[in-house]
């Protein structure tokens, strides 16, 4: 719960509330991907995340 509060505060502070609807969709898809268990990234790319 404290995570959600902090994340909401972050979005508000940074004027990024417009991201919320997209977040819901993206996180939903992301959640499904966790279930699908992806493989790790090959070291071909600079770690961007």
């Amino acid at each position, binding site marked *: 719960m404290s995570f959600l509060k902090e994340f909401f505060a972050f979005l508000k502070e940074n004027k990024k509330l417009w991201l919320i609807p997209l977040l819901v969709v993206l996180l939903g898809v*992301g959640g499904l*991907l966790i279930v699908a268990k992806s493989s790790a990234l090959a070291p071909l790319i*600079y*770690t961007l995340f």
Partner: protein
Amino acid sequence: MKILGISAYYHDSAAALVIDGEIAAAAQEERFSRIKHDDRFPHRAIAACLHQAKSNIGEVDAIVFYEKPFLKFDRLLETYLAMAPRGFTSFRKSMPLWLKEKLFLKNQLLSEIRKIEPAFSEEKLLFSEHHLSHAASAFFASPFERAAVLTLDGVGEWTTTSISVGARESDSTTATLKRIQELQFPHSLGLLYSTFTTYAGFKVNSGEYKLMGLAPYGTPKFEKLIFDHLIELKDDGSFRLNLEYFDFCTGIKMFSPKFEALFGGRARLPESTITQHTADIAASIQFALEKVIARIVIHARAATQEKNLCLAGGVALNCVANGKILRSGVFDKIWIQPAAGDAGGALGAALSAHHLHFKKPTPRNKPATDWMRGSYLGPQYSDQEIEAELERAGAVWHKLMPEELIARAAKSLKSGYALGWHQNAMEFGPRALGNRSILADARSPETQTVLNLKIKFRESFRPFAPVVLFEKVHEWFDLKTESPYMLLVDAVHHSQLRPSQQTNAALFEKLKTQRSTIPAVTHVDNSARIQTAHKETNPLLHALLPEFEAQTGVPCLANTSFNVRGEPIVESPTDAFRCFMGTDLDALAIGSYWLEKSEQKPELHQKYHQSFSLD
């Protein structure tokens, strides 16, 4: 006030302890875990820092993480959104990691910290910003009271390049570090250079040094292509990448097929033969990088009106570009954070919290050089501890007085020994600066090949760096200032050069030409990556060089990191002995102890370099 800085979960995790504004200790996790670029929570590095400062975690007033995870997540989401639907492959791979771990980094950090101190309060955990951490590591560790601060790297949260102004006064609480301009992802010099690194067949985040070392073998024949197609450079040094040629926003590679087509073919496969084309690619991107940085530096001077420049961020480890900034004379003085990469972010996070968050004063007792103490900020071992470790390892040694050790080392180096040199406190940052080093005779034409192929087991084209007595640097190199962190490249002094006999030699044949009186450390363009040895920060090394000079006339040695390819630099005496027995090193000096290879038990010899994955 005690502040612990941490970098982790990206690459090169590290810890740094700042006590009342002074850097008490700093170390990288990889040195202890023995995993190169280890990105896990730096438990061992924290323990080492606290042990060194005779502190415990309960006494720490704040722990500062070096970047802001939410802001980074925001960048990821907005990038995927901007690129959709093209970034789905990357999205599919990154989201599970973020949703399971990285988005909840605060909880994860608290959980790891509470393994050390169960009563650790959440309020004591702070977050800096990636480029603020870099800028703070550069400015607050520098000798300057005012400076322009330039950070250049791949990417942090959003920022890739920033210009700030730092100001402070001794014993005052009014230190400031104000960012005045920045460039944001995906327009990044670090990512541009890394793209060419992978195209040239080297690994991202370790192969950039190789690309820089390869550049003098080539000619920058693709420079125009780079500026015509890849990067739009403005007069003020700001730039934009043409994303048609890059795949890092949406894919799992750095470059796109269009990039390969532009540069005349498929990327070089790792470990395959290096061709003249690869060398020309290296020369071209190095040339382009220097051109962009030169413009940024000119702009930074005009925008800040400052006389001094501090640098940090991974691109600031490009010592060829640094040398050119210095020689351009745009700024009166420059200072580069020796741990300019992400490990140094731990230090910057702690320093920024001290000066900017808690508004604590700059300490009064300013050292003669800078606040980094030569970057010798890691663990050190007493003779008693060394002897116990050597005993356990089954080593055969001779205990010597300091002057005997120096005389024996100088004599052995003169006779062609490759010498493991493990002394005093370990270095913080990617360079071995004479405390966890392999030393060899810079005069010998064989040194470079022997060190590369029989000791380091690495590519034969890679040059070695000289460590030279600071007082004599001007006699041997064109460099007119100190370079204690091996972060400046300059030419070997003309009085030391020999007439070149093979100016048109093909690719690596150039390496065989005797270019100077110190061929082991003279690159094919007659340059050298110089380290100056100073009495204030490394009295032992500073004493060894005159002894070597007395025997040979040369106050300069070849200095390379004490490790084999793919291995983190040795940390403990045990690590040093293992590396000694796994390579063709002739002798090892650890503290007061001298070990000859020929006297060691044959059964202790091992071939362990294959246990490390190639970097």
